[in-house]
């Protein structure tokens, strides 16, 4: 079902865990559907210097969490917001159609964490 790239990413996922003093946090998904992600980012000079993710979810959710966070690390906020689910899926050698919603989830998590960061920044 899954490509080798997905399986390799899944087997050794990167950026798993949480950041204690995150600048932004994004929670997406719903345990009813079997997927829930929490993305933590550290931002410095408009750049994502660190990103971590906690994932409750399937192979696909874990693999895309890992890959998507890898892809935004070091990027500017604007660049990170431009990352699309297709890009992530492509990097992973494709995802089964039924699992496409998982790659949306990772992207959504990152966006939400950026939103959260922006909101917090405005307040200050």
């Amino acid at each position, binding site marked *: 079902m899954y490509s080798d790239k997905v*399986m390799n990413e*899944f*087997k050794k*996922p990167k950026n*798993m*865990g949480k950041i204690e003093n995150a600048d932004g946090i994004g*929670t997406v998904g719903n*345990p*009813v*559907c*079997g*997927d*829930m*992600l*929490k993305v933590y980012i550290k931002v410095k000079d408009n750049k994502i210097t660190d990103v971590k993710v*906690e*994932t*409750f*979810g*399937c*192979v*696909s*959710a*874990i693999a895309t969490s890992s890959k998507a966070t890898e892809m935004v690390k070091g990027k500017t906020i604007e660049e990170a917001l431009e990352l699309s689910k297709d890009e992530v899926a492509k990097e992973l050698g494709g995802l089964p159609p*039924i699992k496409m919603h998982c790659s949306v989830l990772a992207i959504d998590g990152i966006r939400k964490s950026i939103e959260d960061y922006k909101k917090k920044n405005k307040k200050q």
Partner: protein
Amino acid sequence: MEVYLDNAATTPMRKEVFEEMEKYFFQDYGNASSLHLFGQKAFEEKENAREKIAKLLGVKSKEIYFTSGGTESDNLALKGIIQKSNKKKVIVSAIEHPAVLRTAEFLAKQGKKLSVIPVNSEGIIDLNKLKKEIDSDTALVSVMHANNEIGVIQPVKEIAELCMEKNVLFHSDTVQTIGKIKINLKETGIDLASISAHKFNGPKGIGAIYIKEGTPIEPLIHGGGQENKLRSGTENIPGIIGLSKALELSLKNIEEEQKRQEELRNELIKFVLEIPKTRINGTYEKGKRLSNNVNASFYGIEGEALIAFLNEEGVFASTGSACSSKSLKASHVLLALGLSHIWAHGSLRLTFGRQTTKKEINYVKEKLPGIVEKLRKMSSIK
């Protein structure tokens, strides 16, 4: 190490079964409807197989009909009975296999009435509710013997009595029990029972249905009139031979084998429960669960990821998690037990077979906790 613990899904075929089937592919390949020697041989072997199966299940030869598998048998039972009945209602349990549930839903869509009976947190059907639901418009009750996900065994004898009292037919999906438990179908009082060979080390693509003599039923598959006009199509003789041989072998030392598996099961259940935030789904009270089934949930873990890591270690298991299926809905069985979605998504099913060894179970015990820990560490649900 490769450890296959998905025997509720399907089993490897036994060598002895294969050897028995082999000659029917090339040598005695006749069509059982043909009048010549080749056909007559096929016909006789088929009838011998039917007789053997009937004897093993305590019923008459003519009460056994061959089908292509458990799903077809379930469809035939529900559709065939309702078709011939002037009553409109079908009652099923909430934890039936999709072969029964989807069929019942189809009938409901066709204008029949459907009633779904809940189970308690242990996975046992609510007999009072069932009793109340049986009315004068009820044609059929269908309650499975043992559940495929959690292995919980339903009180079929009591259900049969209830149905007899109320003059309603009783179908039981016995796909997970026939070949695993000694059953005398006549004594249980079931009117129709589904059988699938690949669940007890027989071939895929062959099954059977027991239908009590005199039960009015319409065929699901019409045509040449084989199987006493109930199931048309050229008979799958190698499959039929394989089914009967597999059943014979399975029942040979069944009590011993059951006991052996039960010990492995109890040991594994005990081990799993020592992992924190873990539960066993469905009762494991003695006699109320298949001896080959362990179904556990690990809080905060998604089942597909769990079995994927187990797969990496050579352990082949299954999950009721939605993410493992194409439906994206969590296991209806686990939800029916009252599990929350988080618990339901975190289920792991390990089902043993004759080939399962203590060494294999020890291997699972070695690998499982580490994987659970790893996934929990990653998880957003603590």
